[in-house]
């Protein structure tokens, strides 16, 4: 569509805008809205962006495409009155505890009510009070603050490809909820928290652990140490009037010490270790693949720094888990080394309890530290994660004038990283860091070791997929960089089908990578978000040492602290982890044959996606037929389950406590007969 639309008397050319709202913005007019985001589908739910079209009808400008010759007025008495009434209606059903609400300073509802000069609502509340959802380690939901704009629902489904939350019920009962009214902690939520970042109110917020950290700081028997993620230092200044993208590591170190942290380390040093371990792992896998070995890990190698991606892979692509790098994330590497050192010394300094706190841009990191794989001897490798926002609030609570603080150093050796370690904070950074390491440093006069370009055929996807090739000696390493989990899902599918070839795939869930994490100050302005990415690049560029391979402290660390070369035994013990496939929804099994005997043998047939594709449906039908034909129905409980957590070897049948992989009815029945033969006499009496 070409031509012009007249917006409030200004003639505005149509240049590909999909709706009047975008066109009005181009003309410098901000139309109020909750539910319009240019990167999500249009929804037209909040009814705040009403405009008058051609002097007649009133319509939501976000859903009306511009047409040549249209005349739009955005500020008539009728429009203002209707917008105000709609906002009053939204306010009526919103729990207004604004002074104590954590989104008080960043609430769009509060902001628009103020901008539109509202002084209360004429309408009464019609919704019943609903219980809070505190079941997730990362996110808390308060349905009483939800205004049903659906931003979170569309983000989760469209950008992350998950759909952990959706609308349910209708009329006054309508709400946004995980399936079956469960908690976010019980469903396929990957904890990226982008729902909370896009929520205009505080209906979904990151869980906070400030109280636990304050308590540890106040405990005379504890020594509390901090580690700071690259992206956190880039954004924390935004809360204190510093410009977007201004690195504040020095001020942060000072602030953390003033709050009572004993030592301050750099997660970017953990990133340097990740670069070394992951590159070593990659080269070993590549060598094994070249030699035709079937064991020893697979290619392409997928990165594992992003805990949201790791959980997504565990619940969606169980057969892909052998491709996931076994490297811990930088945060967990630092935690692992600190805890191991303390354990060897019989406690932290002076025998005190060591408490490790990470300052992260990310909500999913709160889930990561709770993973059982990341505990040693019953103790977590990292005790608490504070988001950038939480730390900013603690700094404010302590009355520190952050912008005026002097620069303090981080503690060595884990306080000094290469520029590559800092690059982890933005999408593409892990790949760039690995490329620099493998290439033996940054090529002279070049800003980066890896040049990335958008992958053809993926441009229209939400998020982004970029590819580049790294020349390493005689071979070329094909690298793909994905941001957004829907894009990751599409790329995995394309790789499986052979449409895309890659050797190394970096996946980050959040927009722009960690800089766009949900633990960062709320910022929806794309320009300010881009400034964070530039901030990471600047911080990287300002480092004297740009490549991990040139960081002398890393080499020294392997020599003196780990006593092994990269990928060595000790490094594997301390810096690597494992994964296991997960059910999308907890506790789902369908009982099919319920025996009546006193002692019954449970038989569980997996009918999850990968077992289904491997023929579990026919297997199940045949098994039940045979069980009944042989008169065994009284003695067994047959149920269909969704995942036996070994999807790569399906179909899986569990008989008693024994799992049969690549099962057939014969194998399952043989195991069942063996189990029955072993069962006490009472169980077989009913046969």
């Amino acid at each position, binding site marked *: 569509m070409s031509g012009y639309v007249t917006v409030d008397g200004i003639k505005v050319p149509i240049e590909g805008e999909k709706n009047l709202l975008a066109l009005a913005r181009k003309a410098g007019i901000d139309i109020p809205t909750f539910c319009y985001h240019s990167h999500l589908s249009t929804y037209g739910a909040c009814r705040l962006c009403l405009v008058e079209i051609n002097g007649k009808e009133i319509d939501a400008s976000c859903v009306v495409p511009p047409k040549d010759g249209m005349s739009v007025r955005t500020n008539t008495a009728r429009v203002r009155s209707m917008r105000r009434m709609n906002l009053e209606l939204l306010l009526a059903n919103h729990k207004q505890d604004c002074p104590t609400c954590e989104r008080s300073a960043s609430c769009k509802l509060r902001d628009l009510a103020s901008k539109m000069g509202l002084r209360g609502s004429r309408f009464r509340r019609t919704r019943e009070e609903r219980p809070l959802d505190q079941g997730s380690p990362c996110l808390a939901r308060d349905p009483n603050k939800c205004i049903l704009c659906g931003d979170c629902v569309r983000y989760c489904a469209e950008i992350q490809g998950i*759909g952990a939350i959706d609308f349910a019920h209708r009329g006054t009962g309508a709400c946004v909820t995980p*399936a079956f009214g469960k908690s976010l902690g019980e469903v*396929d939520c990957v904890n990226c928290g982008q729902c909370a970042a896009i929520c205009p109110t505080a209906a979904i917020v990151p869980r906070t652990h400030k109280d636990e950290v304050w308590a540890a700081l106040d405990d005379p028997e504890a020594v509390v140490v901090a580690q700071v993620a690259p992206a956190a230092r880039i954004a924390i200044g935004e809360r204190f009037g510093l410009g977007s993208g201004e690195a504040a590591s020095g001020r942060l170190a000072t602030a953390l010490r003033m709050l009572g942290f004993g030592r301050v380390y750099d997660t970017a040093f953990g990133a340097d270790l990740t670069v070394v371990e992951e590159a070593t792992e990659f080269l070993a896998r590549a060598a094994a693949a070249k030699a035709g070995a079937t064991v020893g890990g697979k290619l392409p190698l997928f990165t594992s720094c992003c805990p949201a991606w790791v959980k997504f892979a565990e619940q969606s692509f169980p057969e892909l888990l052998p491709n996931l790098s076994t490297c811990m994330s930088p945060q967990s590497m630092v935690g692992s080394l600190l805890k191991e050192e303390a354990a060897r010394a019989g406690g932290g300094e002076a025998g005190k309890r060591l408490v490790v706190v990470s300052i992260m841009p990310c909500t999913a990191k709160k889930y990561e530290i709770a993973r059982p794989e990341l505990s040693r001897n019953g103790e977590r490798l990292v005790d608490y994660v504070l988001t950038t926002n939480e730390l900013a609030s603690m700094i404010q609570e302590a009355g520190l004038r952050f912008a005026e603080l002097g620069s303090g150093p981080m503690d060595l050796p884990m306080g000094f990283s290469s520029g590559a370690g800092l690059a982890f904070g933005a999408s593409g950074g892990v790949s760039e860091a690995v490329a620099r390491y493998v290439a033996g440093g940054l090529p002279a006069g070049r800003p980066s070791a890896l040049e990335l370009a958008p992958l053809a055929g993926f441009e229209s996807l939400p998020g982004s997929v970029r590819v580049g090739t790294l020349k390493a000696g005689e071979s070329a390493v094909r690298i793909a960089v994905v941001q957004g989990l829907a894009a990751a899902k599409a790329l995995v599918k394309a790789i499986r089908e052979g449409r895309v070839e890659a050797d190394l795939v970096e996946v980050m869930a959040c927009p722009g990578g960690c800089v766009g994490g949900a633990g960062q100050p709320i910022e929806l302005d794309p320009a300010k978000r881009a400034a964070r990415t530039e901030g990471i690049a600047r911080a990287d560029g300002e480092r004297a040492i740009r490549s991990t391979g040139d960081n002398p402290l890393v080499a020294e660390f392997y020599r003196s602290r780990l006593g092994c070369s990269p990928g060595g035994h000790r490094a594997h013990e301390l810096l690597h982890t494992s994964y296991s496939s997960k059910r999308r929804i907890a506790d789902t099994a369908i009982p099919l044959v*319920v*025996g009546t005997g006193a002692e019954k043998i449970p038989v569980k047939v997996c009918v999850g996606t990968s077992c289904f594709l491997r023929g579990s449906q026919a297997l199940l039908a045949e098994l039940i037929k045979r069980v009944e034909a042989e008169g065994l129905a009284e003695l067994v409980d047959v149920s269909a389950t969704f995942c036996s957590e070994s999807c790569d070897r399906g179909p899986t049948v569990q008989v008693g406590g024994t799992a049969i992989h690549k099962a057939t009815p014969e194998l399952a029945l043989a195991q069942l007969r063996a189990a029955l033969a072993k069962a006490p006499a009472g169980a077989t009496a009913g046969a």
Partner: protein
Amino acid sequence: MTTTVGSEARRFEAVLSILDRYERDSTRLIPILQAVQEEYRYLPEEILTYVAVALDLSPAKVYGVATFYGHFSLEAKGKYVVKVCDGTACHVKGSGPLVEALRKELGLEGKRKTTADLLFTLETVSCLGACGLAPVMVVNEEVHGLATPEAAVAILREIKAREGGKGETK
């Protein structure tokens, strides 16, 4: 005994054949849910999850559709579903006392709609389109017009007697 033992398995097989019949096409979610509900008389959570996985939809989306339509029930319904019309005509002709009498007879208190033994579910509906027979009560597919509390209770008692004294709740 063996006929009841295998019934769950057969119902699940029915779900699989429903999914096959609709070619596991996610755009046909509503007819799939209707057919599943016909099989189970309601939509059990684990079956909905299975349907979601089979159709490559998120369970939350399927839950959203299942809770949007009044036709779908996520709770087990009774063998006999009693629908009392509370549309305008039936309402003025006394559907209120009719519902009250039935709730009392079935011992349903508060928000409960289904008797503990899963024999009866009592629902009110907005209009059955039989206003000339108001007030109207439907038991499963059987329509009873010009209903009175006494006649309605008698119908339920007759069913109870036929079912061997079930349907009594404390």
